[in-house]
């Protein structure tokens, strides 16, 4: 029995280390991480009504739980959910950690990244969650003072981005404006591997997204896998009720949000037109 006790202790210690339980906000990065998540929501999802509904409150409840989908062998990625019950917003997170044999590539993110945001009806009970509360006055102050804060791609990422935009849209016969193509690059988020660009000449939104961190050069070796484009003239509707069930459209509200982030908060960049094809 005496010999078994150390073994049990070792087993428990190992289990604790390997179950990857994101049982609290601290496991995800603590309150600084939660603040960045809220700032991402503030910038990309929330509206006045969401903020107004919190006016008389002093705390923002934050529910956190581990999510464990069945993964492929050798995939050590971790998943979690942050639920803001008073907002009715659920944020799905992933910390990527797997290998792509075909690319001889380790896909590993440095922290948890947002992979989806959903409007949900919160469960009646928080039993399945670890509950934290953030101070709303402090959070409001943080959101107000950082509302125009912008992080842009560094020189290396900007170069890769320009090449990717050109490659993506290069096959279109789009006329340059005053001899150049104008792109507006939205700000980067530390909690999301998503980046939007508005290409003014083509009146097209370009969305880059990946399971890899966008700052990782390896991401751009497979940029063809991570690009979606939206023509703001042809793919805009006021409401999805105009084309229910279709996934080919963005609402005017969505497009307005992206344009605000790209044009107002973003960085204007110019691209030289491609050389005309040789006769």
């Amino acid at each position, binding site marked *: 029995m005496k010999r078994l006790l150390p073994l049990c202790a070792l087993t428990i210690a190992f289990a604790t280390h390997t179950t990857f339980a994101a049982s609290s906000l601290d496991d995800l990065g603590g309150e600084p991480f939660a603040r960045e998540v809220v700032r991402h929501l503030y910038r990309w999802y929330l509206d006045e009504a969401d903020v107004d509904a919190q006016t008389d409150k002093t705390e923002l409840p934050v529910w956190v739980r581990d999510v464990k989908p069945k993964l492929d062998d050798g995939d050590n990625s971790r998943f979690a959910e942050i639920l803001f019950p008073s907002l009715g917003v659920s944020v799905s997170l992933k910390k990527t950690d797997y290998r792509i044999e*075909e690319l001889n590539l380790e896909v590993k993110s440095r922290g948890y990244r947002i*992979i989806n945001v959903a409007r949900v009806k919160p469960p009646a009970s928080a039993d399945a969650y670890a509950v934290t509360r953030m101070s709303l006055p402090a959070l409001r102050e943080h959101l107000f003072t950082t509302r125009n804060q912008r992080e842009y791609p560094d020189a290396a990422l900007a170069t890769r981005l320009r090449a990717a935009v050109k490659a993506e849209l290069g096959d279109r016969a789009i006329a340059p404006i005053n001899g150049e193509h104008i792109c507006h690059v939205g700000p980067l988020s530390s909690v999301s591997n998503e980046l939007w660009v508005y290409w003014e000449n083509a009146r097209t939104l370009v969305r880059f997204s*990946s399971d890899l961190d966008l700052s990782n050069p390896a991401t751009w070796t497979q940029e063809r896998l991570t690009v*979606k484009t939206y023509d703001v003239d042809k793919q805009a509707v006021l409401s999805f009720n105009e084309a229910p069930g279709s996934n080919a459209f963005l609402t005017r509200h969505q497009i307005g949000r992206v344009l605000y982030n790209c044009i107002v908060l973003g960085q204007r960049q110019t691209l030289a037109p491609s050389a005309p094809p040789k006769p």
Partner: protein
Amino acid sequence: MRFIQTTVIAAVMLAAAGISHATVTVPSPSDPAGYVARLLINEAAFPGERGFVSEADSKAAMLQVLWVLESRLHHIPTGYRQREIAMVETTDIITVITGDGGRKQVEGFSRNTFGKPVTAPRVEERLQRLLSLANRGTPGRFARLIEYGVALATEQRRGQLSEADRFEHLTRIGAGAVTGRAYSWMTDRDYYNPGGSYVRIPDENEGSLAGNRFFTLKTRDKKKETTK
């Protein structure tokens, strides 16, 4: 005897080598099975892409996307008309994919001015990129996912899907009655309602697959409405 054993082992090894280097292909987009396969492959996240969870999850997404198309074709629920759900009246799966007029149903899939079903250049470019990875070295997840998409599309063309629709028997979501089956999916835009009578299938009903959210429909009063 030893010669026979050696020959058999060598033959097995050669066969295995042949299998492991089999080329993964997708039929031409002018072949309906090739067009459907392109859609299934396009809508599922592959390793490295946002939304990727696992090979099984991406295969499930392909199957359920195909079931959405099948449901829009053959399983219009009581109280609904096909045009209301699919934006078209048709018995052709390609038309369900492309829609008609200016209301495309799936981003990247449409008909050209001559009425021919076409894909956006990036759909084909991504497919070629995935194929080049699938055919690199020993077949892995890329190869298996592409082959699965092609197999599903081929089954559909033959008129019989061998795997069940996981949403077929859904009757309630929250307090509301639903028709069962999924009739729409949206990619990475879970925050937004797809409009009409669509109801989000939640995670507990496996409504999120490979970066796609699936939607079913509210039930309607059977007495007041007519089917297609």
